[in-house]
């Protein structure tokens, strides 16, 4: 193993919706996309931030006292942080008894992550459990990811990579050599629409899906069903047509949209762009039908 470092923003054990059987999901920080519906906005930025949940504050004043940069102060009973002064020393995170302050990620190395991952090896060994690397975008830290995948491989742990597919072709190829299953997002076939709602065009993504299919990689396509964006029969139809032309036709998971991340955006000081429409034109069952019509196995959730 090695001490190559990387940045995570979460690590969840007993994750049961990120691939087959019981898994631990590792969330790698940083993503080039900024999807309007993103559930994990803390995973977008590469840099670690300190954020606060003022509603937990009991006004004990310990963090203010201990802040060497005087970046914290009380105003209207709420704790406020001056991000310009904050050097992210994490003293406030350490001292606050009420868990008001937290970091949006942490730097760690392959050895440390592997120690955590191996803790649930017994559970992975039941059926095909294992580790899922998610994000953010796991491919945004390719060297770190590759080492983790390789290390998991030497322990016989099943490896899933949950990715937007937005990465250089060479990176995908490199990662694929150590990946047992891909969960790849497909959001829209129209590059303009894609760019408008995610910040990037879809050419790279479609190319990578094609590439992985050509290389016989095990893959599932995940489609977040976003009202007003892609939850229309004609949009899904174009996706289904694309998928059906792949060399190996992968199964599709339809992920229903839930508007649950608003408070996360607020905490991060980010603007939460509401999805284009609140009303879903298409329910998951209908969506599944569209894919089935092309002979593509599809299910809700995943």
């Amino acid at each position: 193993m090695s001490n190559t470092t990387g940045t995570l923003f979460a690590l969840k054990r007993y994750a049961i919706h990120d691939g087959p059987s019981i898994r631990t999901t590792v969330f790698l920080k940083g993503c080039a996309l900024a999807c309007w519906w993103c559930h994990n906005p803390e995973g977008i930025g590469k840099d670690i931030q300190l954020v606060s949940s003022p509603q937990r504050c009991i006004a004990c004043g310990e963090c203010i006292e201990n802040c060497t940069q005087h970046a914290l102060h009380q105003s209207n009973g709420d704790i406020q942080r001056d991000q310009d002064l904050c050097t992210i020393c994490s003293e406030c995170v350490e001292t606050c008894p009420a868990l008001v302050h937290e970091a949006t990620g942490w730097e760690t190395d392959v050895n440390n992550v592997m120690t955590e991952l191996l803790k649930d090896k017994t559970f992975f060994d039941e059926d095909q459990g294992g580790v899922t690397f998610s994000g953010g975008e796991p491919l945004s830290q390719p060297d770190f990811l590759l080492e983790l995948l390789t290390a998991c491989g030497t322990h016989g742990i099943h490896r899933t990579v949950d990715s937007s597919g937005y990465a250089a072709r060479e990176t995908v190829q490199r990662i694929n050599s150590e990946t047992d299953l891909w969960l790849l997002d497909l959001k829209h076939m129209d590059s303009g629409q894609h760019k408008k709602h995610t910040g990037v065009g879809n050419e790279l993504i479609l190319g990578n899906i094609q590439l992985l299919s050509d290389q016989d990689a095990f893959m599932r396509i995940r489609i977040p069903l976003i009202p007003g964006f892609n939850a229309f029969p004609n949009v899904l139809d174009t996706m289904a047509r694309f998928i059906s032309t792949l060399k190996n036709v992968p199964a599709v998971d339809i992920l229903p949209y839930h508007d649950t991340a608003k408070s996360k955006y607020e905490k991060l000081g980010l603007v939460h762009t509401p999805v284009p429409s609140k009303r879903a034109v298409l329910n998951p069952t209908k969506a599944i039908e569209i894919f089935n019509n092309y002979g593509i196995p599809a299910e809700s959730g995943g």
Partner: protein
Amino acid sequence: MNERIKRLRAQSFNARPAISIERALLETEFYEQHTGKHSLPVLRALSFKHICEHKTIYIGEDELIVGERGPYPKAVPTFPELTCHSVEDLKVLKSRKMTPYDISDEDIQLYQEKVIPYWTGRSMRERIFSHVPANWKAAYEAGLFTEFMEQRAPGHTALDGSIYGMGLIDFKARISDRIQRLDYANDPLAADRFEQLQAMDISCDATILFARRHAKLAEKMALESSEQKRKTELQEIARICCHIPEHAPRTFHEAIQMYWFVHLGIITELNGWDAMTPGHIDHHLAPFYARELEAGSLTREQAKELMSCLWIKVNNQTAPPKVGVTAKESGTYNDFTQINLGGLYADGSDASSEVSHIALEISDELNLLQPQTSVHISSQTSRDFLKAATRVIRNGKGYPSVFNSDMVIAEQLRVGKSITDAREGGTSGCIETGAFGKEAYILTGYLNVPKILEVTLHNGVDPLTGKQVGLQTGKATDFTDYTMLYLAFEKQLEHVINLKIAVNNYIERMFAKYSPAPFLSVVIQDCIENGKDYYDGGPRYNTNYIQCCGLGTVTDSLSAIKTHVFEGKLPMAQLLQALSNNFENSEALRLKLANKTPFYGNDDDRADDIMKSVYESLFTSIDGKANTKGSVYHLNMLSTTCHVYFGKMLGATPNGRRAFLPESDGTSPSHGADLKGPTAVMKSLSKMDQSLSGGTLLNQRFLPSVLKTDQDLDKLCGLIRGYFKLGGHHVQFNVVDTATLRKAQQDPASYRNLLVRVAGYSDYFVDLDRDHQEEIIARTEQATT
């Protein structure tokens, strides 16, 4: 569920628990006339026979399996020879809001006139309490431990397969043979053995007589019945009740009725803890089922109907009413009959069968308080059996609970049982391991481990009362390191356990001498051969368990002291001050303790190592101490509902828990302390060598949304199997969300059916008192992304 079962179920569900004074009157009348004429065992047997001869016989409409302990369903007798309820007790039981028992004013009057005067000063409870030493009483009153045998007889009785191959006439032959072989010249106990064997013989006659009275009533009812179908059924009942229990059963129907008469005999003779259980009923019924199915004399539907009748019969036997401390320990109508399904046959092969699947279906459909079902999963158990069990678990009744057969066997092998006896053993009550049909494994009482730490922190004084209740092990402010504190805690622990055991052994001899159980002794192996009672070391194996409570609370408290006092900057005096003020004005400190301490349940060695050392200390102090039957004590890690009572006797604790709130339950983490999901919890628990115990208990609460799809169930199976591979003994699930529980609190009438897992048993949520309801809500909800 067919129409008959629907009607019987409704009758059982709707029947109100009531106290019947019939048994008390018969018992008193008999004792008044016969005390002094016979040896104690014979007196007990004759008194049992007197009850069997004279108690009201009940055969309900629609019933196929017959017999009640009381005069009608859910009418529960009292046992004044053990503990005689006062008029005040009866009035409290009648009027209390939670789990009341009906009793008429006339019956209270009769009790006052006929029962109470005779038993005053004579009941086991009074005799025990008049003998206990002052330091025991002080510790008991401080809530350092409870005593199981002050209100009920030592229990935990599960049967093996003997009664399905032998009638009572065959047992009588064995008894007679043993009497023939008594060696008065060389065996100084021969005369005692004779009395005991004679008592066993009488008790067999009593049970046969009891069955015959049912036959007679059934015949009479058949004559009177105008409906041909019912007439035939009643004639069949009459035929069966003449054949068994005198002779061995030949059919599936006879086998169930055989068991039921033996069950009733045992719970009529005495009110042993955890009622009585058939143990592995699927093992015992499977051969009858296979034979009759093959012969075409029984269909799957008929088998299911008959088994459903048995389930309903068990539900009709409400727990005997308790009062005082014991009522707080366990405020429930549940009498803890636990039916084991699956597991292994004596030869080590997978014992799950079609009968096991039928039993699971019944538990799911009937949705009754009793019996509890548990599934026993070994490495060999078929996948589909565990999957079928998770389908029932998903429905959120709290059962079946899930046990690891391989661990249950390992626990028994460790204490010297044979491999075949261990495989035929299982779990009863909540999670307690025993060799079914061959062992008296007696729960003796709960130990309040966090309270022992509290007393240690106050040099032997209970800070809630200021009384000296333990040893003077030094002032906490003088401890200079964690080891000093821990050694003081160990010393205190040893002292409290010794105190408990001393009185326990005394009580045990009281039961052996004055309250033998001859009928129970007939059906538990080796009592006949040894010519000794179940309570006197007669069975093949004789175990005493002490149940240790609050492992999570004590571990987290020690971890907090270690982290913040000895490795941090918090002065011990300041901590003690905050605890005595129940964290009043020290919320920052409380949050620091609660949020900045490594806690048990997160797969974090810093906390789990402390848990391991506490577990080892408990083991060292308890395991191997002598009981009065030539055997020893072992530890057991369950709390039933006692963690709520113990919590009420406990001030604020160093883990940030406020005073009087419940302690952690079983071997589960403290409420809300586990933040890393169920695999981390299981990893933490697996760090204790569970094979050294007589059982551990893990509660997990899942949101219904986590168990929606078939794949979700596969993942639950994987979780269970993973835990068992790691050496877990037991896990049980509550599948219900907080919103539902809150709604049930608001509107109990609409949620009368909502079963939840409490401890090693389920109860109706609306029947629980507020403390227990809140406690269940506080258990960490395992949601997942």
